[in-house]
């Protein structure tokens, strides 16, 4: 009987201790509430937000390629790996993986950012300067991500402000969150608000954390791009010129130009997305899609290459194929650092774009300043080809020359498609191996607003599909 009592007693001991036995804390994660518990964690959250841009589903590759793949800047290799065919052929369906991935990735990155913005003011050990710095950068990121989403999933701002944009998220949403789409106008209004707040907050910031973080100049440069898209040329010109006037930036020289593409940063780097050999996307990286030793899926159409004069330093963007591929020209804008294909930093915003924005805006303001426009254009054109004559074009010819120069200068950096869309010009699609484009998309066209992903339609009853 004694044994039995001992036994029952031990049962009781086990019983009372089992609550402790079954309360386990994870080793590999921290609880949500601790993510912004102190300054160190808040800074880590901000680091996480920047790192989030690097996903190959976003700025690590897909979004950048998206700026060129739908246009005749690229030729689709006959032996392509099926990547970016939807963009190249303008046949994106709501189930398209790139489309779904971009939507999901952007919103998951917005959660990273919103978690910072919503909670940063309550970080106990942060000074006001710390808070301004962190919040300012996060607000700029929030504007950037929404700007990218609205350019992919909605019609362009000018003339379509009342059409449907995308949900602009400014909270840490509950799992039940099922927002409706905001109008394009609301989205742009919010972007400007966030950028203006970021400018205010970062103006006071003592530390310049560039070029791998958003700085005051970086936010202004982004805002210049945004207001250019909105057709506010006066403001675009002012902002671009403010950035150009920032002492720490200068245009690359002709002699340093070619080598700059494999450098980590250059004098033009306003905001650069850093990649290291430990965190780059390997075979999913940007360079891998273009280079022959990579996938070499998207190549240079002969007609596009022909736009570059002999002697133009930008011929360094191209490289002839080898082996069985000698008839093709490959893109070498991302030539690989340390000999690792796919390891390249990406310039989110670089100074040349500001010159070209200033040039275009100078032509389009109420009182055009063509002299200024010509000077900005020459800075880019003569830098590439010193023997090129100074600009003499005026009127529409000057605008066309600036746009052509922008296409050439920023090719494969993810701009041309968005510029054509913004300008409401017809878009000639990617070409096949025979040089024939798949399609030409006029303006207006339903194809200019990509479908909302089927997955989101299925998960969110308040979501309205784009006609496509």
């Amino acid at each position, binding site marked *: 009987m004694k*044994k*039995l009592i001992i*036994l029952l007693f031990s*049962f009781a001991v*086990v*019983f009372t201790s*089992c609550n402790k*036995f*079954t*309360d386990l804390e*994870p*080793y590999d*994660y*921290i*609880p*949500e509430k601790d*993510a912004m518990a102190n300054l160190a964690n808040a800074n*880590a959250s901000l*680091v*996480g937000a*920047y*790192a*989030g841009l*690097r*996903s190959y589903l976003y700025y690590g590759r897909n979004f950048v390629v998206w700026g060129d793949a739908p246009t005749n800047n690229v030729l*689709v290799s006959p*032996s*392509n790996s*099926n990547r970016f065919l939807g963009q190249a*052929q303008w*046949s994106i*369906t*709501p189930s*398209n993986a790139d489309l779904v991935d971009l939507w999901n990735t952007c*919103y*998951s990155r*917005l*959660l*990273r950012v*919103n978690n910072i913005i919503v909670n940063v003011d309550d970080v106990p050990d942060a000074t006001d300067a710390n808070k301004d710095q962190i919040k300012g950068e996060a607000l700029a990121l929030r504007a950037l991500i929404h700007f990218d989403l609205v350019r992919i999933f909605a019609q362009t701002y000018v003339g379509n402000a009342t059409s449907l944009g995308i949900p602009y998220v400014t909270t*840490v949403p509950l799992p039940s*969150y*099922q927002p409706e789409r905001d109008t394009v106008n609301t989205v742009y209004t919010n972007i400007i608000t966030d950028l203006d707040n970021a400018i205010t907050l970062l103006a006071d910031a003592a530390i310049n954390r560039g070029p791998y973080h958003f700085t005051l100049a970086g936010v202004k440069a982004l805002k210049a791009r945004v207001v250019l898209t909105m057709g506010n040329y006066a403001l675009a010109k002012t902002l671009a010129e403010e950035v150009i006037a920032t002492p720490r930036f200068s245009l690359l020289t002709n002699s340093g130009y070619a080598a700059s593409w494999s450098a980590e940063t250059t004098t033009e780097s306003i905001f650069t997305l850093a990649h290291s050999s*430990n*965190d780059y996307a390997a075979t999913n990286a940007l360079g891998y899609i273009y280079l022959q*030793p990579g996938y*070499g899926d998207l190549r240079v159409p002969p007609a596009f290459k022909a736009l570059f004069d002999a002697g133009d330093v930008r011929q360094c963007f191209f490289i002839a194929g080898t082996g*069985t591929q000698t*008839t093709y020209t490959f893109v070498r804008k991302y030539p690989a650092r340390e*000999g690792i*294909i*796919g390891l390249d930093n990406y310039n989110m915003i670089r100074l040349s774009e500001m010159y070209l924005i200033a040039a275009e805006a100078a032509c389009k303001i109420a009182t055009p300043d063509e002299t200024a426009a010509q000077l900005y254009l020459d800075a880019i054109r003569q830098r590439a080809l010193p023997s090129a004559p100074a600009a003499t074009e005026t009127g529409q010819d000057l605008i066309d020359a600036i746009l052509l120069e922008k296409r050439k200068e920023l090719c494969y950096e993810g701009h041309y498609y968005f510029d054509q869309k913004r300008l409401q010009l017809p878009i000639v699609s990617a070409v096949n191996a025979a040089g024939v484009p*798949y399609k030409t998309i006029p303006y207006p066209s339903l194809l200019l607003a990509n479908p909302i*992903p089927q*997955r*989101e339609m299925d998960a*969110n*009853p308040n979501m309205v*599909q784009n*006609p496509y």
Partner: protein
Amino acid sequence: MKKITLFFVCLIFAGVNALWAQNVQVSGVVTDNDGLSLPGVSVVVKGTRTSITADANGHYTISVPGDATLVFSFLGMKTQEEIVGGRTTINVIMESDARTLDEVVITSYGVAKKPTNTGAAINVSSEKVAAMPVTSFEKALQGNAAGVMSVASSGQPGSAQSVLIRGIGSISGSTMPLYVVDGVPIATGNYGQMTATGEITYSNNSNIMASLNPNDIETVTILKDAAATSIYGSRASNGVVMITTKRGKSGKTTIDFKASTGFSTRATKHFKVLGREDFLDLATDMLVNAGYSDATIDIIRKDGTVRTINSMVADQYTMRDLNDDFYDFDWSKEAYNDAAPTYTADLSVSGGNDKTKFYISGSYFNQEGIVKESWIERGSLRLNMDHQANKSFSLSGNILLSMTGQKTALTTSAYYTNPVFGALMYAPVDPGILSNGDIVSAPYTYPANFINNLRYNDIQARTYRVMPNVIAQLELFDGLFLKANVGLDFMAMFENQWDDHKCRGNTAFERGRSSSSGAENMVWNETVTLNYIKTLAENHNFNFMLGQEARKTDYRDLYAASEVFAPGLYEVSHGAEPKYTFGTHNQNTLASFFLNGNYDFNDKYYASASLRSDITSKFVGSNKSGIFWSVGASWKISNEEFMQSLSWINSLQLRASYGTSGNQSGIGNYASMGLFATGISNSSYVGKPGLYPYQAENAELTWEKASSFNIGLDFNIFKNRLNGTIEYYYRYTTDLLMSAQLSSTTGYTGRYENVGEISNQGIEVTLNAIPVQMKDFRWDVSLNISSNRNRVEKLYGGADIINGTRIYREGEDIQSVFTRPWAGINPADGRPMYYTKDGEICYEATDAAGAERKIIGSAAPDFFGGFTNKLSFYGVEISAMLYFTVGGMITDQTMLMFTSVGNRGLWNQHIQVNKRWKQEGDITDIPKALYGSPAASHGQMTSRHAYDGSYIRLRDITVAYNFPHSWTSKIKIENARIFVQGTNLFTLTTYPGMDPEVGLGGDYWYGYPMAKTITCGIQLKF
């Protein structure tokens, strides 16, 4: 009350030793009350050490003095004595002994012979488990147990088997049954760590079940209903598979030896791609139809003949063979082994005396895969000991040591470098190896070549497993037992991967990468029970149990990689540049208390009840605990007086049960918590560590609960010539665990939630018959058929949950296939057509074009089962098992890609495309060839690529010969047997894809195909 154990029985033998001068040969069959043969019954000549064990069919033959007494003993049965008295045939029916329930030895809280008298359970004998040349025992369950669906998800040696008991009872929670070895729940599933890196992995190919040697298994008992499983409470809602390993028996020391060898090749080869001429024709069609030039050029062959070919095609494929013509390269030859060897050897020694018994076994198994560069090997060692210290105290100890090595051929996650896929994709005119023997590193079709990967890359895994447990039992006083079972299941796993610089597509080019991972998984489990067994007034038998159990699982792993190597060095430590390192560590715990009671009256009426409480670490707050219970009753009608006149009925029993059980496996260990994570590629930036939101909180998350009803009838009639079981069940599961889809705008695409309710109901029929039983000829037939109907009863959100081509919709089957109906090919222009909601024709499988999406079927089969015939005559045994599954749709992503005629660029295509539309008026179901045809019209999974997955497969055929005892005894061999066995020798199906056995999901990508195997071997018993 007198306690009877097997061991005590043995003491009786030390009696008078009377000898008759003349020996007689006595043989017979030992069966139980139900007429089922009892393998492994010990037959001892009373008063001597002469003994033998009945074989797998309950047969025994023994040479004894004519006046001897035979003592038959078996665990859970009343020991029985038979005086030979000159007889040569003695068939024995053994009575179950209710009072020996929960014997010293095997189970933790199970029951010995038949684990339940009221619940639904089925035994699969060691004969069936060990007979098949398979890597892990669950594969042998296919077709051998009603209600158990066991299908391979891959043909890779060592890959996982999906085992489903009575339908799908969960969405995201595990649907796997609980596996219990000698009373200790063990770790199951796949343990491959490289998955986490996004590197190429074993994925579902590293099944840890392969570490158990099927030859060590005595019986597999599958518990199916609540009465049988609820004692396992929390983890039992998908059923329980109880494995009992072999044990020594007192008496003569027995040595068993078995060796076999054989070859494997692909089970089906009907998926064929185009050869050279057909491909050239297709490529020309594709390009010209897409607007490329139709100019031709002449290729003059070395033999002087001329080939006129589209110039674009000629430009595309510039490599020429020895005749200066296009190559006609057979890629499949580079991917597959046509005769992959397999061999195995097992040796076991068992025996003991009244106090101490042992079983020791060693085995080695080696199987090469049908895809090149894939294999598995396993070495294992087991020691089982039982010791009766004194009248009231006994101790058992078991230990398994095993090592499993595996090499993979990248057939699950890899794509272009996957040999199975590559063998289909690369065009024959695009050679992988040139006539001079050089491997082409960048073929046109895709600039990577799997031949390089097969030759230069290397991915191997090694799993070490140690499974010890100790069971102690103490009789505190008459009828009250205290029992403890403490067990460990420890695994150490290592994977090494070498990515050679010659290969591309899976590594940093031109550098070489070595990666290594190590992982350990430790499960400990302790159970303490108090059993009280009491008989009142002769016929009222009671058995009560009170128990407590605790379990902890701790998993951790570490991964490292390096790049840039000196020639000939491949280890991760040799790389000049260290790369990624990371690791994970997680745990879960479970604490349980349970009560169980059994009652029977006079072997006629049985009743059982159980109650169990589980507390899990996976949930938080009050949701941690779950309470589960069951009641059951059975009536042995044949034991009633009024039945005695019906002599053709040997036994008849009616059973019914109702109860609940739970499920919390299959979800993350911290699934309830809101978590932030860190990680190199995901959140660190410019060398600084970062944080990111990893998982959305759901504090309400709780147990998935199933309640099930079972009614069954067991019968044995016509002098034990026909027996069977008919069973009906209904299982209703609530609070289904699922990673519910969230609007991505929340920042998460999903989180675990309790999302709904589903039901499964079905009928299972098992029939075993002996149509012919003569002196030297016996024919056994057995058939089992199971049919399960699943229905999604309720989704808490109300709305459909769509997941690709599958949908969860109230009122529909959980495996409903949801896609767009195909309307054929427009005869006028060769475009694919689809139906809109109104039955109109449209040309894109998209919402925009108006193409309807609807449920077109289910991936779940209507019914499935096994049909076995066995003939025995003059020592020869021929047995054949057909496995059949009828219904069940397969959505074939591979057929989609390989009949898309241009959506996948210049990939080679299935031979079906020879029937493609070519000119106006063609009636066909293959579209016009069009290079770069859009995904919206050509590349979507629609009803066009949804096929009926029915098939019949000759799962097993064995021809064996048992040498006569009179011959073998001369060379001191008790038993000698030789056999030839074939598995998957033929398959009947209308399914055009690679192989109809595609796993449970019914969605085929390009997994490792199934093998057919022929082996021959020898079995000896000394």
